[in-house]
C-alpha cells in the first residue's frame, strides 16, 4: 500500500512555498507569454483578461495568490480571483498535474450553493494556471477582530457576534449535511460581505466524508491551523468528523468575544524524520482553560494514539490548574468583564446562553460535542429576539475595506499566524503513533 498515497505535487509545493506576491502585472502577464505560439494542445476558450480587469492584489498563500478584479464587457461586479500557483520545473512553467487539494476545491465549489458559503462564479483554466473566480467580499473575521483591537480594544457588539455565529453555523450545517468537512475554519477564512452576510470561504482543505475510499486519515495527515485544531486531532485521531469543524467554531466564538485566540499555542515543527510531532504546547493551552480531559467524560480518550503523550504531560508538569478541573466559565466571565459585555451597556451580552453554547462547542469528547444543527437550535439563538442576516445591522461604525495593493512587498496575510496554512505536511508523512505501531 506504500504507493497509494504519494505526495501530490501540490502538497510538496505547499511546504516550500513562501508567499511574497510577485509584481502584479508581471504575474498575470507571465501566464500569457509562456506558450510558444502555434503549439498544439490545450487552449482555454475563455481568457481571464478578456473577462476581468485586475485591479490589485489581495493576499497570497501557499496555494497561490488572490487578486481583486472587476467584471468586463457588461459583466458587473467585483470579484476575487484565486490564481493557483503552477509548479515550476526549472525556469519555465510546466504542466505537472494539479494538486489533489486544488481538484477538491474546484469540484466542491462547483457543486456548492448556499447564502453562507462563498459563491464561485467560474473557473478558468488557462495557460497552465487555474483561476477560480469568486464573488468579492469586503471583509473577513480576522480583519474585523483586528479592527476591534485598534487603536485600543473595544468589543464586538453581542448582537453582531450572534449574527456572525448564526450565519457561520448555517453555512456549516449546509456543508455538513452535504457531507463536506471544511477542516480549516479560522477567522481569516470566514468572509463577510459589505452587507454583513457571512460566507464560509477557502474550501482548499475541504473534502467529502461520505464513505471515502481511503480513511480520511490517510490523505492529509494533519489539518486545521493549530489554534483551531480539535483535541482529538491533537491526540492523533484517525477519524475526522464534523465535530472538528465545530471545535473551530467554538474557538472562533471565543475569539470574537475576547479578540484573542483562546488557545494560542506554539506549533511544534516536524522533525527531520518527517513525523508529525505531538502538539504538546497547543494541548497545554487547551488544558489550561478546560482542565485535563478525563476518561470518565470522554471514554474514547484512552484509545487515542497520543494518549501516552497526554499522560506524560501530566507527569512532567503539574501546575495546580491541571487538577482544579474546568474553568472555562472563569475564562468566560473574565472575558465578558474585560470586554465590557453587560445587559445594561449598549454592547449587550451573550449571557449564560452564550456560555452554555460555547462550552458545548468546546466539549472534549467529539461524540458529545454539539452539532451545527443542534447549535442553531440552542437557546443562545432562540432567546433574545430576531437575528439579522446582516451582521452590521444597527452598527454605526464602518469597517475598513480590504487592503488591495499594487506593490509586490505586501506579505501581510502570509506573515500573520492564523492566516497561513501551517502544519500541513505532505501526504507521505507518517505519524509518530503509526511509526510506533509498526
Amino acid at each position, binding site marked *: 500500500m506504500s504507493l497509494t498515497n504519494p505526495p501530490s505535487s501540490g502538497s510538496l509545493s505547499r511546504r516550500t512555498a513562501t508567499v511574497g506576491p510577485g509584481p502584479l502585472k508581471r504575474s498575470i502577464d507571465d501566464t500569457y507569454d509562456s506558450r510558444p505560439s502555434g503549439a498544439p494542445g490545450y487552449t482555454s476558450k475563455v481568457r481571464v483578461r478578456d473577462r476581468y480587469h485586475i485591479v490589485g492584489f489581495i493576499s497570497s498563500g501557499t496555494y497561490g495568490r488572490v487578486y481583486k478584479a472587476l467584471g468586463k464587457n457588461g459583466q458587473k461586479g467585483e470579484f476575487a480571483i484565486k490564481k493557483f500557483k503552477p509548479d515550476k520545473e526549472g525556469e519555465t512553467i510546466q504542466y*505537472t498535474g494539479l494538486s489533489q487539494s486544488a481538484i477538491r476545491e474546484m469540484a466542491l465549489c462547483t457543486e456548492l450553493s448556499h447564502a453562507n458559503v462563498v459563491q464561485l462564479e467560474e473557473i478558468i483554466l488557462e495557460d497552465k494556471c487555474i483561476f477560480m473566480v469568486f464573488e468579492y467580499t469586503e471583509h473577513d473575521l480576522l480583519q474585523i477582530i483586528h479592527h476591534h483591537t485598534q487603536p485600543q480594544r473595544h468589543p464586538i457588539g453581542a448582537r453582531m457576534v450572534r449574527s456572525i455565529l448564526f450565519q457561520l453555523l448555517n453555512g456549516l450545517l449546509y456543508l455538513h449535511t452535504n*457531507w463536506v468537512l471544511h477542516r480549516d475554519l479560522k477567522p481569516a477564512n470566514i468572509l463577510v460581505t459589505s452587507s454583513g452576510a457571512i460566507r464560509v470561504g477557502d474550501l482548499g482543505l475541504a473534502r467529502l466524508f461520505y464513505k471515502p475510499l481511503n480513511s480520511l486519515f490517510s490523505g492529509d495527515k494533519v489539518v486545521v491551523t493549530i489554534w483551531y485544531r480539535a483535541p482529538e486531532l491533537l491526540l492523533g485521531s484517525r477519524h475526522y468528523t464534523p465535530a472538528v469543524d465545530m471545535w473551530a467554531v467554538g474557538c472562533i466564538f471565543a475569539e470574537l468575544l475576547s479578540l484573542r485566540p483562546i488557545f494560542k499555542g506554539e506549533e511544534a515543527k516536524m522533525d527531520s524524520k518527517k513525523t508529525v510531532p505531538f502538539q504538546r504546547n497547543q494541548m497545554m493551552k487547551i488544558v489550561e482553560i478546560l482542565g485535563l480531559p478525563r476518561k470518565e467524560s470522554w471514554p474514547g480518550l484512552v484509545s487515542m494514539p497520543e494518549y501516552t503523550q497526554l499522560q506524560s504531560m501530566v507527569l512532567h508538569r503539574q501546575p495546580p490548574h491541571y487538577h482544579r478541573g474546568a474553568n472555562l466559565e472563569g475564562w468566560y466571565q473574565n472575558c465578558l468583564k474585560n470586554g465590557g459585555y453587560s445587559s445594561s451597556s449598549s454592547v449587550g451580552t451573550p449571557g449564560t446562553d452564550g456560555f452554555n453554547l460555547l462550552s458545548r462547542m468546546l466539549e472534549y469528547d467529539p461524540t458529545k460535542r454539539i452539532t451545527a444543527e443542534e447549535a442553531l437550535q440552542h437557546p443562545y439563538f432562540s432567546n433574545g429576539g430576531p437575528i439579522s442576516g446582516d451582521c452590521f445591522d444597527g452598527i454605526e461604525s464602518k469597517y475598513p475595506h480590504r487592503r488591495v495593493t499594487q506593490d509586490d512587498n505586501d506579505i501581510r496575510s502570509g506573515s500573520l499566524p492564523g492566516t497561513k496554512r501551517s502544519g500541513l505536511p505532505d501526504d507521505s508523512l507518517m505519524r509518530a503513533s503509526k511509526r510506533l505501531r509498526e
Partner: protein
Amino acid sequence: MAANYWASTQRRHWLFTREKLAETRDRLRDRDKVTHSQFPLPDQRLLNIYFNQQLIKLGKRMSTRQQAIATAQVYLKRFYTKNEIRQTNPYLVLTTAFYLACKMEECPQHIRFVVGEARGLWPEFITPDVAKLGECEFALISEMNSQLIIHHPYRTLSELQTELSLGSGEIALAWSVINDHYLTDLPLLNPPHIIAVMAIVVAVVFKPPSHPGAFSSPAQSAQSTMAGVARDGNGMNMLAALADRTGTGPPRIQKLVQWLAESEIDIKAVIESTQELLSLYEVWEQYSEKHCKEFIGRMVKSKNLDK
C-alpha cells in the same frame, strides 16, 4: 450538491435524454464528416468495453478501487460528448481520466507513476513527458466545467441492501451489473438510483441458479447469465410482469414488484435500462480486443494524435 444528487451538477448538466444525446453526437460527427468516413470505428459499446479493459489493466498495477475506474469511465463519456474521439489520442485521454478520477475518489497516484504505468501498457501511444498528461487534465476538467463529483449507483445499492433484504449473491450480481452499465450510455441517461434499482431487479429476477462463488468472476457471471436470458426471452417476460405490477411470479419477485410500485420509482426507466443492458450483453459477443486495438491504433497513428 456534493452529496445530494438532486441538486448536483450531474443531474443538472450531465443527464441527457436519448434524443439529446444522439443530437449531440450527430453534431460532433457533422463537424468532421471526412474523418468519420475515413476512420470507421466499432460500435461505441465495444469501444467502451475496450477502454474499460484498459482502465482495469492500468488500475490493477496500482491496486485501484472499482469506484475510481467507474468515475474515470464517466469522465471519458462526458469528454467524448464534447470532443470527437477521432481528434484525440484515446490512450492519453483514458490515462488522464484515470489520474483525475483517482484524485477525486481519494486514492491519488503520482503523475509520474501513472505515466510510467501507462507507458508500460501502451508504449507506442504514451510519451514519457508528464506534461502531456497534465495538459490533457486541463482539457478534461475544462470540458467538464470542473464538475468532477460523480454520483454512483453503488451507494444506493448498499443503502437498499437491508431494506430489500438482499443476499450476498444478489448483491454481488447487482454490483457487477452496475459495473457493466458503464459500458453503455446509461450513466448519461439515468440517475444513479434508477441504475441501482435496475441492477437489483436484474439480480433478483435473473439470479443464477448456483451461488456466485461458482463463477470465476461476478462480471462474467452477469454477462453469461444475461446473454442467455436475452436469447431465450424469459427475462423479457419477467420485465413485462414488472411493468404490469400485477405481482405474479415467485414470492421474492412479487415482493420486489410491490416495493417498486410503492417506491414511485420510474419503472419505465428501469425497464428501458434493463433492455439496454441486455442488448449490451448481446453486442458483447462480437467483442474482439484485437479488433478495437487495431482500429484505434490506425486512427491515432495516421493522424499523429500521439504526438
